[in-house]
């Protein structure tokens, strides 16, 4: 089967999945009990009222509705779609910055740990430990450290704190994945490079990094997802305005009036995650020749 047919088939499957999801949503809303399904007093399935589960068509229409009330509107009036897209793009920009920082830091850490065993022994526990610190506890700290710092003409912007927090989530899979990848070449390859008197740089560029690709790509996918989640959580906990995180909060405060908007914003956030994953997939496809056994195709 050729590549085009395969990706067309995949697109059809994704579309079918969405249709199925929509059908389940609407079916449950129509036939499920108003008060949701309870098991031993705990609600295991949500209420089906319009406030909890708006019709998909309502959510669809919400995108077209004009921004009123809570959200400040200056100049020409914006639709909810405009706001969601606008917010998503802001969040995407911060997440991309966080992702970039995370990838660079993760790779540098991995290179250091690969080069010096002692560094791996010393750093790895902290790298793992770092991920157990709750993001919400970290966010105010980062903001406080950043506030007012100034180096020459460079002044710390609030969005930078958000990017740093996103990077904090993103660096971890990259560091761990790349360390494994750098150690993945077989002994016979290592011997060959040594016999060829290849230095550290040559061995890195021509052997270790190419061999790392199958480990690095899944790590980047996790890092991209982490950066988006990190950005959204950080927006909320640092109170940064303009992104999708804040928009979700703003809309949920108006939720009693119009719950469909919350869903509109959530869909926007999900689309962001998908965009990030798609970017990594495209990068992955460009590196097909480094996939294990892929060259045999």
């Amino acid at each position, binding site marked *: 089967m050729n590549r085009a047919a395969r990706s067309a088939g995949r697109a059809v499957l994704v579309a079918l999945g969405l249709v199925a999801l929509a059908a389940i949503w609407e079916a449950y809303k129509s036939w499920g009990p108003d008060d949701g399904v309870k098991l031993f007093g705990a609600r295991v399935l949500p209420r089906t009222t319009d406030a909890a589960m708006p019709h998909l068509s309502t959510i669809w229409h919400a995108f077209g509705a004009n921004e009123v009330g809570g959200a400040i509107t200056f100049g020409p009036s914006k639709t909810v779609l405009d706001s969601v897209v606008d917010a998503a793009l802001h969040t995407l920009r911060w997440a991309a910055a966080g992702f970039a920082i995370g990838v660079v830091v993760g790779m540098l850490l991995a290179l250091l740990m690969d080069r010096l065993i002692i560094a791996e022994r010393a750093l790895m526990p902290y790298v793992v430990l770092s991920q157990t610190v709750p993001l919400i506890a970290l966010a105010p700290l980062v903001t406080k450290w950043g506030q007012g710092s100034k180096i020459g003409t460079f002044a710390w912007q609030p969005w930078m704190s958000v990017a740093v927090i996103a990077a904090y989530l993103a660096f971890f899979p990259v560091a761990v994945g790349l360390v494994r990848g750098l150690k993945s070449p077989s002994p016979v390859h290592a*011997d*060959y490079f040594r016999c060829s*008197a290849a230095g550290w740089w040559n061995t890195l560029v*021509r052997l270790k990094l190419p061999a790392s690709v199958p480990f690095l790509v899944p790590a980047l996918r996790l890092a991209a997802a982490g950066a988006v989640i990190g950005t959204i959580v950080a927006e909320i906990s640092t109170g940064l305005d303009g992104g999708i995180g804040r928009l979700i909060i703003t809309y949920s405060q108006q939720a009693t009036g119009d719950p469909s908007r919350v869903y509109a914003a959530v869909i926007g956030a999900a689309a962001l995650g998908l965009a990030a994953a798609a970017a990594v997939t495209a990068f992955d496809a460009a590196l097909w*020749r*480094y996939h294990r056994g892929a*060259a045999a195709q």
Partner: protein
Amino acid sequence: MTEPQETAAAAAVELHGVSKTFPGRRDAVVALQDIDLTVGPGEFVSLIGPSGCGKSTLLRIIADLLSPTSGEVHVNGKPARRARLDQDYGIAFQQAGLLDWRTVLANIELPLELHGVDRGQRKARALELVELVGLADFAKHRPPQLSGGMQQRVAIARALAESPTLLLMDEPFGALDEMTREHMQNELVRIAGDTQAAVVFVTHSIPEAVFLSDRVVVMSPRPGRIAEIVPVSLGPRTDDTREAPLFYAAITQVREALRGRPVPETVEVGVSIEQADRERAQGAL
């Protein structure tokens, strides 16, 4: 920087009193003891012996992948480390060890690339070598698309890329089936003749060692040392060589040396060793 004067008489490999001890948890393992060996320019020398006799260790010492516990190692008249850094030898292992993401041509170019040879020269040399090992039609393929024998030929071409005066080979045909193996031996004889390189060749197979070599170095285990050096004079090797009485005579001689005593004139003993060899070859498939 001036290159050290290379005299025409400099031996490809010169080992003096080489010993290697691996420190063990309880007691140290003596892998090699007091090895003296000289391999002349263009000479083909095989190292043969049972598992654990240290033949691969010896090859790795010559390649400067290991350093000897005592003794001296010279390659082309230089210390082994200098020779490795100067790329005086090419090397091939039992596993081809090619980079899967590179084409055959790019794999052969790798050593040239590592040492800063420019693109045009690299390409020309790789094309020449891919021709030499008979894989011109596969130049643009990647290793996973090739059979084991073809991969090994690429590895040999790669080892030859920098026209080394010495080739080190660690059971390069050990994982190949018998037919491919004989074919590769023929090729290697031709290539070694064409390039005038000296070869140090580690093998388990008596017929392989005899067919390829000018001298067969028979080693014995625990501690690894040279039991005997058997000179082989069979003239130019062809497929007929494998049927020649002299070939069998040399095989018997090596076998005797491996046993450490003359083989009794019974057929059974000979058969049993040959059988063991065949089983080993099959086991490796």
